[in-house]
């Protein structure tokens, strides 16, 4: 419900902005995610996110981007006091970022520096025991992306994103679970107009 509302907002903003838009490009990328919290890293290690984003440039140096990132991570439950059992786990996260960026004019490449908000929907499942948890939350993000044109409308694309994903769920006394971290992505971008 919340996700649909946000998507609608993105669409409306996108349409409104495209009236004044100067250019639009789409990027498809994949890479690696390193969680900020030790607990996450201990259980899942680095993750492999895939992202699809649209980058809308306004007249001037500003623009708006929106998209979707999908992350799936397999891990196994950590034995707190030295047990030998294996409990495979799967973690999945779907993220809908909305970012306002600044793109200084540079020769030969497009650089974008952005900040915004993302809606996250996540799910953790134990594979061999009927145990699971689902949740949604909003969190801030900052990003830097670069496009290096290679041929015609096609560019090489790279981005670095830092997100905070505060779930509000308490893990141990005091520590609340934050699913955020740093992700580095590489791929291609296609200039639509």
């Amino acid at each position, binding site marked *: 419900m919340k996700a649909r509302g946000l998507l609608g907002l993105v669409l409306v903003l996108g349409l409104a902005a495209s009236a004044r838009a100067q250019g639009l490009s789409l990027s498809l990328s994949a890479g690696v995610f390193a969680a900020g919290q030790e607990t996450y890293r201990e259980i899942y290690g680095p993750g492999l996110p895939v992202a699809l984003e649209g980058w809308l440039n306004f007249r001037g140096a500003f623009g708006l981007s929106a998209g979707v990132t999908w992350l799936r991570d397999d891990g196994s*439950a950590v034995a707190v006091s030295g*047990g030998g059992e294996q409990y495979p*786990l799967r973690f999945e996260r779907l993220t809908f970022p909305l970012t306002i960026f600044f793109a200084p004019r540079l020769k030969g490449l497009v650089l974008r520096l952005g900040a915004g908000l993302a809606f996250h929907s996540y799910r953790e499942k*134990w594979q061999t025991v*009927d145990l699971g948890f689902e*949740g949604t939350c909003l969190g801030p993000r900052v990003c830097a992306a670069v496009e290096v044109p290679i041929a015609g409308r096609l560019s090489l694309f790279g981005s670095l994103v830092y997100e905070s994903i505060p779930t*509000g*769920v308490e893990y141990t006394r005091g520590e609340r*679970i934050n*699913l955020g971290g740093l992700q580095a992505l590489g791929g291609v971008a296609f200039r639509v107009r």
Partner: protein
Amino acid sequence: MKRARLFLPVFMACGLLFALSLPRSKPVSLVKVLKDRGPVWAVLERLQIDVRQELETCFLALADREDLRALRKNRVAFSIIDREAGGIEDYFIVPLRAPGTLDELQARGRAAAVEPRTAVFWTTAGLPMEVLPSELPRKPLSSSSVLPFLRAPVDIKRAAPVSAAFQDPVVEVLAAQVSEAGLRSLVQSLQDFQTRYASTTQCEAAGEFIYNTFSSLGLDDVWFEPFVFSSGYQSRNVIAEKTGETYADDVLIICGHYDSISPSATRQTLAPGADDNASGTAAVIEAARVLAAYPLDFTVRFIAFSAEEWGLWGSRDYAGKARTAGESIIGVINLDMIAYADAMPEDLEVIVNGRSEWLAERLIAAADLYADLTARKTVDPSFVYSDHSPFWDQGYRALLAIEDNPLRNPTYHQTTDTIDKLNFEFFTASARASLALLAELAQPVREGYPRTPIGLTAEPVVYRSLFNAVKSARLSWAAQAGTSGYNVYRTNMSHLDYVKLNDAPVTSTTFTDDHLRIDLPYYYVVTGVGTTGLESNFSREAEISPDNLMMTTQTQVLNFLQMLRAR
């Protein structure tokens, strides 16, 4: 003169600076912390608040300014009862049984109602013992923190009523040996001391009588434990022990106070206390007589406490020392007024705190099976007015068996509390029920059966993901000769409704129980199975305690409901 005028303000400023630089003394307040919010247990524990009393709806705690600030910050609902708390021994919990009680208390000292039926009383003028109305029972705040023993209630429902309740022929034989004539003679003997008001020589003589009676029964040990009470008086608890054959260090207690009271004008010379509490004392002695000849797995102590009427002095002394010595007390059966029936059939009221509920459940079953008596459970941590409550304060499981709650005996704390008012049919049934529970828990050793397994331990192993966790219990025990295998049982409620986990007997001495919920306690026992298929008594319980590792604040709660036994 001029110099002096300058000197004065400088001196005052220096004085002020000095005063400010001194470490602040910490004035301590007596506060009432409301229980209603679930996380309050965790918060109290995290803040290490000095809780001195658990009541039904609140805790009473000592808190300095820092504690108060921390409580506020954590949004714990509390109110201050006494801003400058003095000595702890000065605060008494008293029941508000009649409408005018609070006014009367406030006329005699300072008092505040902390619950509809419970007040705290304190005074700086004289001993509270002398100031409090004699008909009011009283309990001082615990002399040490009860925080280590507080545990948030776990919502566990008993799966099935005791449909499988099994009438143990040995226990049946033992219960039948409780004799009405024996009880009658014991109550008469105790009443014949005229008064057993603690501090009188007759009370000490009654203690001597109990000691001699215990000594004549052929138990393993009988001794006095003297203590000082109410700054200067002396009295003695009388203790008899039957040492366990299998578990000498794990103790079950059956107890009652032998001292008595009547109004202040008469109590030095006349306080017959037939119901309160020659009845409970007689039942304790009778239980000792019946069990003396029978070998039991666990140690049983028969205790007659003194100075109960003065504020539970004997039992506070005993329970405090037991905790300091790290004694393993499995359960306490406290009998106080079990012989008066205002109408027949009379039910036996069983009062417990949350952690002791299993004792009440077991007494209800035993009363039904072995004494044809209806017993009723009341979970009320505010009912602290007898010798069970010092055991609660020390984290032990204890029950109070009492004829009525609220009391209906019109001779309560009067010179008219005499043997002729007692109902011996009800009394004998009450004594039988409590003896049956004691025997069930202490486990008669049976000839020809495999020996009870020993050395059971349970090690928890926690496995956690980001949002969930499961636990395994690794059990191990000592090999027992003459045993061809073992059965392993589990329950979430101590001493109740054990469920067997293995199909065929386990031939090794280890067992792993997987996929346990992290937030529940688990209790295990094992039995030995002999070559002919006979099964031994239960071992002592090994516990896996619940973890606070995960405290979710969201409502998309852990989907624990159906724990698949994977594989």
